[in-house]
């Protein structure tokens, strides 16, 4: 029979099972959350932590996906609902980070600045790392792509074949859209699963993920018009 304490590690990875040599799948810290430059000061002042357990987050997200899944009929609708849920988070993250990072000062007025803030600063605040890359689409001037090898929404998720291209990172796509919209850069953001090929596949061949997630950011016309005027 298992000892009474053993079940706790489902909820909190910090309690390790004795004798187990199972290594956590990513090298990333197992905690996610708001970690900003001023988070230490926050913790010191209020004594509260600004990170949450990855397990707790995963369970919550899992429940959210199941809740939404029971109420929609198509994969598209499921992704839209996840994006909506993320949107509100994005708005708040923008507000909070702007407030905390006083060193940053002025708000971003140029498109690239805003995108870089999202893929670097916001990413670090939410996930403790920067996005793996930020690219501009070669076909459309108003499209940008943020690449992420393993979004935290997908760490434990295996999408069954009958749900096809569904990507739970739609939630993060919503966060991006919310943050950009809050900064007056309205855009539609969608999450796509891309099979790794060539060099990238070799790098992660040693047990890493087989797919990556690409967030396609398509800015609305007004943003592009304004950007042209500012240039």
């Amino acid at each position, binding site marked *: 029979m298992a000892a009474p304490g053993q079940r706790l590690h489902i909820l909190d990875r910090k309690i390790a*099972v004795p004798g187990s040599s*199972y290594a956590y799948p990513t090298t990333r810290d197992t905690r996610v959350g708001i970690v900003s430059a001023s988070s230490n000061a926050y913790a010191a002042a209020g004594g509260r932590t600004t990170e949450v357990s990855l397990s707790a987050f*995963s369970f919550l997200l899992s429940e959210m*996906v199941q809740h939404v899944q029971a109420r929609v009929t198509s994969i598209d609708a499921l992704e839209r609902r996840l994006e909506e849920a993320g949107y509100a988070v994005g708005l708040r993250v923008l507000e909070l980070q702007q407030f905390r990072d006083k060193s940053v000062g002025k708000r971003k007025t140029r498109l690239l600045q805003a995108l870089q803030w999202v893929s670097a600063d916001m990413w670090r605040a939410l996930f403790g790392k920067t996005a793996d890359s930020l690219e501009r689409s070669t076909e459309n001037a108003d499209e940008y792509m943020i690449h992420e090898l393993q979004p935290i929404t997908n760490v434990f998720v*295996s999408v069954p074949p009958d749900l096809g291209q569904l990507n*739970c990172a739609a939630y993060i796509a919503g966060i991006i859209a919310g943050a950009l919209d809050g900064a007056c850069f309205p855009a539609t953001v969608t999450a796509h699963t891309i099979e790794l090929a060539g060099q990238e596949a070799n790098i992660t061949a040693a047990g890493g993920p087989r797919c990556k997630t690409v967030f396609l950011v398509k800015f609305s016309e007004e943003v592009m018009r304004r950007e042209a005027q500012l240039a």
Partner: protein
Amino acid sequence: MFLQLFIINKSGSLIFHQDLSPAAPRLSSNDSLRLGSTFHSLHAIAAQVAPIASSGIEKLETATYRLRCLQTLTGAKFVITAQPNTPELEVVLQGIYELYTDYVLKNPFYELEMPIRCELFTQHLEKLVERYNAASR
């Protein structure tokens, strides 16, 4: 070398079965289902007929194979079979249990008590077993 892994849910039906090495005996899916529920019943009987308070069958040692069973607090049973003299069966079972809590229970598309079809779980299971098999060689 490890042979096979069975995961049995709390009502006694087999929800996962995997051959862990080429040396594993070939079983049809019906046979493994039957084996899973038979073990579940034997486990329950063993717990009841024991002269002292017992949690059922924990391990079987035979001349041809070893079996180790881990029953979790939620009633699921993880059963692994291996060739004689394979060490660390219980450690591997703990590792598999951990993989199960991560890649099965945190997967929004898995329904409790239903057969496990999670790609990431199988992937990580293979890696874990490979590591132990390589170490014991």
